[in-house]
């Protein structure tokens, strides 16, 4: 109910200003159909309309932005944009005598820089187009307001508006720039690498390669040089999903079991047990993972002690046998994950309405039936969003795999180990092996799978649909 109030409040200023704008709206289309010469001229000389309505500061700002952008575009941008067409014209560096008899040093083209500058200019052009559109709209708005009220809003009015009706623009400006430059630009840049020959054989100068990298990763034969093939991709994908299912649900159910054991009536010192189990959360994950990795080495303390006690003759192959390694990472991940589950679930279990249990018990339900029909449905209802988040986080659980097993064991000639996830494989392909193009293909695959499934599950989850019910 309060929600409608919020909506009205947000709409109020807009409704108040709309009639004074002559009913033409504030869109670009309206600006061109109803705008006068100055307004239309703003599409060519940005800020013209504002200057004509005596909004000098605003007009000058638009003009400076346009001039600066055009200057940079002509002096640098055009060259760097056309550089996108041919990423690596000079493939080999060296020294030679040129036609005039001078001894010259030729460097191979820095294709990474070319690609990056090209992509960055595409971003810059999109950003400029947004400024351009706002300049035209602003000119039209100034025209309409000048006609209706005799004068266009002054600079002070605009600043006040940015603090009030358009507070979202001023508050979001910096965070959005940060996200665009350090999250979206790298992703686009990374994606564009998938269509090039940027690998360990072409570390400096490379060329566009179309879809051939996708063909390499998805062909049964694959590429021996990069150590990728369809079979390997499917194996890593399957293990990633198996891992995510185990890491999410095993943690969830065992954590719930321990939480219930601590909560059960006869258990003493409940606070102490909870504290003991949450100590591992407070230790930084990379520290505990590195320590456990050391403990489980062939010569590590676990194998040494077992040998000392005469329980085994040979070291247990924690990270040297594929199935042992898979079991090890899943079990160690329980050590990491169960405390988080206990923390999450204890409160939820305590909130299960007592009368539900009572009613069920009066009907003669045993403990299993109580658990199945009362506890589980309630816990799932509350914790489904948490499970979805955990599942996607586990698909990308870089730390546990990289620090614990580092993908080991790895077969000769394969770029991914038996416990590598898509994300650690991608990391190895790019950072360790320098096969950026194939790594980028794997990244895109992960991107597509994750993005689609997550968006679908989120949109169908209650917390997304009922967001507004909270207020």
């Amino acid at each position: 109910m309060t929600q409608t109030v919020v909506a009205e409040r947000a709409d109020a200023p807009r409704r108040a200003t709309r009639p004074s704008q002559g009913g033409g709206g504030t869109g670009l289309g309206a600006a061109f159909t109803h705008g006068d010469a100055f307004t239309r001229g703003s599409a060519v000389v940005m800020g013209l309309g504002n200057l004509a309505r005596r909004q000098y500061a605003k007009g000058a700002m638009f003009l400076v932005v346009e001039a600066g952008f055009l200057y940079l575009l002509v002096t640098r941008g055009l060259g760097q944009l056309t550089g996108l067409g041919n990423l690596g014209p000079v493939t080999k560096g060296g020294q030679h005598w040129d036609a005039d008899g001078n001894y010259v040093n030729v460097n191979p083209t820095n294709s990474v820089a070319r690609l990056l500058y090209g992509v960055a200019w595409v971003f810059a052009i999109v950003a400029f187009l947004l400024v351009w559109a706002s300049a035209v709209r602003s000119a039209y708005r100034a025209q309409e307001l000048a006609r209706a009220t005799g004068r266009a809003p002054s600079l002070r009015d605009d600043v006040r508006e940015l603090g009030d009706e358009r507070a979202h623009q001023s508050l979001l400006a910096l965070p959005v720039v940060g996200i665009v430059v350090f999250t979206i630009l790298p992703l686009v840049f990374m994606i564009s690498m998938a269509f090039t020959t940027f690998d360990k054989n072409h570390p400096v100068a490379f060329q566009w390669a179309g879809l051939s990298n996708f063909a390499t990763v998805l062909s049964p034969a694959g590429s021996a040089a990069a150590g990728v093939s369809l079979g390997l991709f499917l194996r890593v994908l399957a293990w990633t999903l198996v891992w995510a299912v185990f890491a999410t649900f095993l943690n969830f159910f065992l954590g719930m079991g321990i939480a219930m054991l601590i909560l059960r009536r006869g258990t003493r010192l409940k606070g102490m047990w909870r504290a003991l189990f949450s100590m591992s959360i407070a230790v930084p994950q990379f520290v505990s993972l590195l320590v456990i990795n050391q403990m489980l080495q062939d010569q590590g303390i676990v194998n040494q002690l077992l040998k000392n006690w005469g329980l085994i003759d040979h070291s247990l192959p924690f990270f040297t046998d594929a199935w042992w390694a898979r079991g090890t990472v899943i079990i160690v991940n329980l050590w990491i994950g169960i405390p988080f589950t206990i923390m999450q679930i204890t409160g939820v279990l305590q909130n299960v309405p007592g009368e539900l249990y009572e009613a069920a018990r009066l009907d003669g339900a045993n403990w299993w039936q109580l658990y199945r029909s009362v506890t589980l449905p309630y816990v799932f209802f509350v914790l489904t969003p948490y499970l979805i988040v955990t599942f996607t986080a586990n698909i990308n659980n870089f730390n546990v795999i990289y620090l614990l097993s580092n993908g080991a064991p790895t077969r000769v000639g394969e770029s991914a180990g038996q416990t590598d996830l898509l994300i650690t494989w991608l990391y190895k392909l790019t950072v360790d092996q320098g096969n950026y193009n194939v790594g980028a293909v794997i990244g895109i695959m992960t991107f597509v799978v994750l993005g689609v499934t997550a968006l679908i599950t989120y949109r169908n989850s209650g917390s997304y649909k009922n967001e507004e019910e909270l207020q």
Partner: protein
Amino acid sequence: MTAIPQATPQASAILPDAPAGASPASAPVTGGERRRRFVADTATHVFLGVLALAWLIPIVWIFMESFNKNTLPFTTTFFPTEYTFGNYTKLFTDTSVMNFPRMFMRTLVIAVFVCAIQLIFVLCVGYVMSRLRFRTRRPFMNTALVLGMFPGIMAVIAIYFILKAMGLTGSSLGTMVGLILVYSAGSGAGFYVMKGFMDTIPASMDEAAVLDGCTRWQVFTKIILPITKPMLVYQAIIGFLTPWLDFVLVKVIARTQDNYTVSLGLWQMLQKEYIAEWYTRFAAGAVLVSIPIAILFIVMQRFYQSSMTGSVKG
């Protein structure tokens, strides 16, 4: 491990505390019932004890190793045979091979900046998404959701090239600025928890403020911010901890040892070239880093839980 049924063979044993008081189970119990309950209680405590031990062993072990006089990583006994405090002093005095104090200071400076920037960004975006309604709100939230699922690792190499093009990878100061940017610039997308908290502040509070002539900026700074204090502490600690816990991004971006942060330095100590000499110093460093982080973590939990009980009491 099918622990649940084994350890709790009884019908009533598995039930939580709350409903038990009013249940028929509180009726007088027979001797057989009492014996069975005693067995179940004992089994539960033994089981929890064994599990707790498994949870503590790695932590105890690394703590003991940090006092081990024998610097070799592979020992044959669980507890050290000879104890020394030298690992801690050497970590800070012997800076010729690895400069731990320098790494520590660098991480601290980065952490302070990241904390401040993240806090500002998350607060701004959280407020806007919770309180203001505008055309691009839903698209923005969906984009942030999708972006949130792609960890920095995915494009880490692209981020490195971007920093390089900005000239932020060579010098020691440049790397520091680069790391601060990498840790904080995209943090605006992580506004969901903050927004969730602000959603619990009744809309009537800002309506009253607007009627009194507050602009939306003033509502933000004068009404919402003060109420958000518990969440502010939570967010500040998260931001502060980011550079202490990350080692993936810094591993790609800080290429020389002069530019390392603590986590990368500790990781480096366990590499083949160093481990024989540095293993116990790694343990000492791990203990030193873990203690403040653990304290901050416990404080953070406290504030998080108190903020989950709602923003405005009564």
